């Protein structure tokens, strides 16, 4: 039985990893067709000369950083506040936002923005995407930080307050530093979620705020451009690295 399980596990891992591995391998394919014709970096080169892709990548970075900062701050504060004393309404809202399908969040935000913009006369843009991303990231950050808080001993804070610190100082000087690895892990999580989001972003992005996933989606739909393999390989490697770091921090 043990050997059978091991063989099965190997096959399962192959199933999970081979599709991505083939993408990475074929990103180095010299031919534009699916026949291997030799090693080449041409698709990576065409990536770096593509102005549209560069702008989309830049937008993705800006959106990811901005939404990560905001949602990490808000999520950490929320997790801490709920840890002090729970609130059924707020926890319920957090879980509800996690369970809501992305498409529903996306169209509801789109409808909301369009309705509001009729009075304000604004346009969809980078900022609407950032707002949307914060909307779904807060819950993720709050949950990761809350998990970290569960392992934190409240006696430490009480001790600090007994020694004369205010609530705020106790939080800032005692709890927060202890939470830092968890917060950074949550931030990295929010970063990757934001960077990779397609559904919500495509609905609320305006004319000038194309993101990298939107470009990749268009290429996947049209089906012709092999440099999509190159950008996919890059994303796989970069995300993989980011997440390994996050995991290390979470275990710390």
């Amino acid at each position: 039985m043990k050997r059978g399980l091991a063989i099965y596990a190997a096959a399962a891992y192959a199933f999970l990893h081979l599709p991505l591995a083939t993408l990475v391998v074929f990103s180095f394919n010299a031919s534009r067709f699916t026949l291997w014709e030799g090693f080449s970096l041409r698709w990576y080169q065409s990536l770096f000369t593509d102005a549209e892709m560069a702008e989309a990548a830049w937008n993705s970075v800006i959106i990811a950083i901005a939404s990560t900062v905001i949602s990490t701050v808000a999520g950490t504060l929320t997790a801490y506040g709920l840890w002090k004393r729970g609130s059924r309404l707020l926890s319920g809202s957090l879980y509800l936002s996690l369970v809501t399908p992305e498409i529903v969040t996306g169209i509801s935000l789109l409808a909301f923005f369009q309705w509001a913009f009729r009075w304000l006369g604004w346009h969809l843009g980078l900022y609407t995407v950032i707002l949307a991303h914060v909307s779904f990231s807060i819950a993720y950050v709050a949950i990761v930080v809350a998990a970290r808080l569960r392992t934190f001993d409240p006696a430490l804070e009480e001790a600090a307050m007994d020694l004369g610190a205010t609530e705020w100082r106790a939080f800032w000087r005692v709890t927060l530093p202890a939470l830092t690895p968890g917060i950074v892990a949550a931030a990295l999580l929010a970063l990757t979620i934001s960077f990779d989001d397609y559904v919500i972003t495509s609905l609320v992005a305006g004319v000038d705020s194309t993101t990298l996933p939107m470009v990749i989606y268009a290429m996947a739909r049209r089906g012709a451009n092999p440099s999509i393999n190159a950008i996919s390989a890059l994303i796989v490697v970069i995300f993989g690295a980011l997440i390994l770091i996050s995991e290390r921090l979470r275990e710390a």
Partner: protein
Amino acid sequence: MNRLRFWFLLPARVWFAGLFFAPLAIICAYSLLTRGVYGGVEQPWTWESYRRMIDPLYGIILLRSVLLSGAATAICVVLAFPLALFISRATRRKNLYLQLVMLPFWTSFLVRTYAWMFLLRDTGLVNTALIGLGFLRQPLPLLYNDAAVLLGLVYTFLPFMVLPLYATLERLDPALLEAAADLGARPRAAFYRVIVPLAKPGIWAGIALVFIPCLGAYLTPDLLGGGKSVMIGNLVQNQFTNARDWPFGAAASLTLMLLTLAALAAVYRRGPKDLL
């Protein structure tokens, strides 16, 4: 004590009120209005959109969503169980094995879905290889059908089933299996009568983590299903963009929400409370 907590919770409260509940309220309102001739919404208020949702034409889409999600979940349970068992029994590198399971999930969702397009389409790797090796003369239509969508869903959500199963199996006391063997049970009987029942909470948690997101899937059926209205998510998206029928799209998305919450309620009762 309360003042700090008040300010700390304020950002999230404001955010949720303004950017989560207000939008949902607007969607509720839209679902009861009428479609403008070329788009947008206008009076009068009507139940028409919901009446259309019950129409068998769209009932099929609802049914297909539930069936595909159910099938994907069932397949995930079967595929994930042995893997979770293997990891729980591994003596040394448990964490590594777990990380290897989660690693594909953490890379981009879009890229993972595209990987299957790359493999399955007419000019994709599978067809090219089969034709090159002489097994086929014409490419097989592997993509743009329900089977491809099912494959995509299983591939995407398999890690979600492995983790809770592993968590439950890991807590399994090996002494129980020894006891079963002592009482004369063969390995297969021990498996079905001891291991599986004890793993039930993990199975239900896994079902929650797979079935519910599958219901609301959009990208997988869109890319792998060929852009047709395969599942509810696609119907919603289409009504809000090209079809410009916001009231109907709103009704469809609220139906999806209801389905999701119903599934959640059904599973919550059976699964472990602390995992969710």
